[in-house]
């Protein structure tokens, strides 16, 4: 079981970071844009550090590592799909 810390580290570090990036970029597509048409972009950018540290802590504290992977990868994939559809890359 010596691999476990690394497996968890990859989830908490790089994967959480990529997931937060996708979350930030994807959220801009469905958040309300407000009166000036910028809120949908500003809030994800502002919240990006908080989202990442939230996911980081979650990844380290989740007892079942498999579920941790599932949640973070699913969250990232859903937003990746949303972005791909918006850019016309995916159906």
């Amino acid at each position, binding site marked *: 079981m010596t691999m476990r810390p690394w497996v968890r580290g990859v989830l908490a570090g790089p994967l959480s970071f990529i997931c937060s*990036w996708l979350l930030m970029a*994807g959220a801009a597509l469905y958040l309300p844009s407000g009166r*000036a048409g910028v809120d949908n*972009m500003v809030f994800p950018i502002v919240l990006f550090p908080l989202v990442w*540290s939230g996911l980081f802590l979650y990844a380290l504290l989740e007892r079942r590592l498999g579920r941790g992977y599932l949640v973070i990868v699913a969250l990232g994939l859903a937003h990746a799909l949303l972005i791909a559809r918006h850019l016309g890359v995916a159906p």
Partner: protein
Amino acid sequence: MIKLSQDNTRRVLDIHGWSGILLGLLLYAVICTGTVAVFSDEISNWSSPLSGESVDGFPTGFNAVFKRLYEEVDPRWREEVDAFVAHGGRIYLRFEGELESEQEGHHEHYGVEYQIDGNTLEVLKRTEGLDHERAAAREAGALAEFFVDLHVRLHLPNPWGLFLTGVLGLGMMLAALTGFVVHRHLIREAFTIRRNKEALLRARDAHVIAGTWSLPFAFVLAFTGSFFSFASSVGLPAMAMVVFSGDQERALAEVFNRHEPYDDTPAALANVDTMLADASARGGAKAVFISMNYVGRADAFARVFTQVEPGQLSGRAFDYAAASGEFLHENPVLVGKQPSAGNTVAALMTPLHFGHFAGWVSKAVWFALGFAAAYVTLSGMLLWTLRRAQRRAWQRMAGVVNWMGYGLPLAMVLTAHAYFWARASGVAVGSVQWAVFWAAAVAAALMIGLGSQARARAWMIRLSGAALLLLPLSRWLCDGPSWASALNHGQQVVVSVDLALLVAGGFCLWPRSRRREGFVPVAEATS
């Protein structure tokens, strides 16, 4: 309240310690330079005051100088024109255009920059070239810029430097969050520092108590700091890519409300003084920055930024039709074409991070907050190495922590000396600053490596103290004004900063017993 199992408490404590020790060294550098950078305006005003009365804001008569210089400049560099007041009352007037670079399809900003004495309106210097060439010519602000650059990107190229400081900010946020989670019961001990106990307990108390008190602002500074690092290096490119399908120009135009051109009929520019005065009256504070596009055409446009009005957190921005001088509307100071929740939140990041919304009062408070954060970082790293002092590897790490902890402030003060002597002898200020900074870092490493850590540390504090005490002398010897002349010309900043340096130097040299010092020698702890 979050309830943690014993296992999770252990894990959170590990995250706290490891994120601190892995990122702590660089984080400490970012915090120290950031703490000094709170006073970056004062540092520039103190290190490079002009010889006459000190001026604040644009003086009347700037319009005439502006128009004369505008005529002189090659029309290719008149696409964007802006002017700002900085560095002891100098006005920087900048004309910029796009230069076809050697790489095909790439453009670079090229232009002409004038430095104007805000008091006499005489041109002090003219520089023509690329962005970085013009920046290098701003010697009056080079010392403050050195600290700011180290703080913002650790002198690494963009976007990597920003990316790294962003990650450091995330690390600091994590350390604050996890510190709160594991130590929250210690809030009851907020006044308990056991200096009369053994070394480890003293080190622990010193770290935990400073951490407890500075926790809310450490979180705020880390959060806003990582926002600044990531917003431009990660956030905006992401939005350009996704929301605007890769069109960076359109993204910038949309987010920062750039005006579109609509009429290229030649037309003279309205009186700049009048627009500046109008904006000052509307904003309740002096105008300090004006940015113009399409000057010389009927659709010329100007945006004027004012300083923060007393009692407010941010300055304001006003848009003008620059050919007629007609006021158009107030623009949100940061993002969008009209007020929005997003702009309010984004605009809040600046005062929360920089702390320069209420003059010297808020700056002094933010400086103290930065100092506390630096203390928490350093004492935390020392505590971590002290707990593991029996192991050789951690003893070496303690040496590295001492090197950064006490060598960095010494290197920073020596850099300031280098700034003055380099300017006085007419050599390139930027390179001399870096050379002296690194030489000091190497010297500090030698001091640590060759003798006992505790002795080296004590010497570094003494040397920093002496260097601080001598800094006003260096300034004065290198053509700086005397106190009498500074006070006569209303340059109180010169005397105030000198006095602050003398007090800080005295504090470093003040004799104190070893027990009272925050640092605990490794040998004492393990014996």
